[in-house]
């Protein structure tokens, strides 16, 4: 094999067909409010953890829905579970419970 000094870059795109939607399916049953997010960003705006670290709690929703499980695992770790997001959500999404349920689902579906 020849050393070319580089390799083909990895794709950054979301290949939806190949992604794992099992966690989402689990969540639809255990925290059905997951369905109603409109990506308004109210949660991110008020997020306690987001003030200190690079954390966008709105993205947790989005990654979950796209089946992007690896980045999702990284993101949920950053949540402080303070629950402020629940107070501001205009669509009644229980983000705090959602994050706990995601962790449970990931552990269960491993």
């Amino acid at each position, binding site marked *: 094999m020849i050393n*070319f000094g*580089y390799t083909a870059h990895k794709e950054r795109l979301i290949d939806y067909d190949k992604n794992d939607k099992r966690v989402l399916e689990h969540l639809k049953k255990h925290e059905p409010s997951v369905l109603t997010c409109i990506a308004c960003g109210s949660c991110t705006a008020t997020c306690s953890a987001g003030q200190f670290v690079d954390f966008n709690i709105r993205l947790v929703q989005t990654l979950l829905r796209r089946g992007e499980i690896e980045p999702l695992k990284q993101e949920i770790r950053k949540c402080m579970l303070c629950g402020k997001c629940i107070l501001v959500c205009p669509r009644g999404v229980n983000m705090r419970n959602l994050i706990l349920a995601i962790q449970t689902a990931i552990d269960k579906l491993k």
Partner: protein
Amino acid sequence: MINEGKKRIWKDYQKEIADDRYFYVRSCIRQNFFPASEKAFLRIMQEELKKDVFENAAHTTCSGIGYHSDVVPFDTTMTVIARQFSLMTESGNENLVTSCITSFGLYNEVLETWKHFPDVLKKVRGYLKTATGREFEIPKNVAHASDVIFRFRKEISAIGVNRLVHHETGRPLKVVEHIGCHYSKMFPSKGVGGAEYPYVLVGMVEEWGGEVIDYPERRHCCGFGFRQYLVRANRGYSLANSKKKFESMKPYKPDFILTNCPGCPMFLDRWQYTLSEMEGVTYGENGRGIPVLTYEELAGLILGYDPWDLGLQVHQVPVEPLLDKMGIQYDTSRKFLGKDGQDLGRPDAPSVLKFF
């Protein structure tokens, strides 16, 4: 796929292509990597079609690769292009035909800029005058060399001796066409067939008996990306884009890839070799690659030119499987000989990609 729908779009994008008396400007990449294609273009135009094609020794690069890798400013590139126009004007010509797609795109971009910003044109006239004392006229017609071959595809077919069909089974050969991004993505009306379903190569393939395959990543760039190939650290980008195309076209089992851009055939050819050495993958039949042709090489094969006169020996992905399907005779022992039959040795065989 509903072919009628494409035909309707093709009808909307008819462009004027001059009939004769072309001022020809060459391509840097093609002269380096596919020199015989330019040779074939002139042979087809002058000997077969009896057209006047003028070339001037004084013309240079349009500086396009320098411009698109951003080391050459726009003013400089516009003035270099103005100088090419000046040589055209000086030789009494008004129909410009470019061998290069980057050039073709740039000539169009520059002409559009001048149309919208007459002050810029005035400035460039001043630059050229100061630098060289030259003046110029704007060409009446700008075409890419593939437009010209497209225009005469029926004439070529009429005098051709080979067809794009399997010589034993009569099956139309399956062709993947790849259009250079700068052909019509910026100005859809400047390309035959527009930007989404360009017809320039499809028209040739259909006329010459083949069948075009429309695969999902057809419109995607080959990945040249100028600076993305020119600097080694970035080449993974270039490679990844071609790889994406190969993986998308592979299930359709194309007999070959047809291109109209200088860089694309080189990359689509070389990256197949690179991927074979790097990842052990090949995209053609039985450990071979998918042959990649320029439109002049293809026209030359249709006209019965010797494959080694067309420069098919300098492809890293061997084209012999295609020649065999078309029933074209070739002399393997002469593949790597010099002009007068001198022995030049032969290239090393790649370790994965089947070569000999």
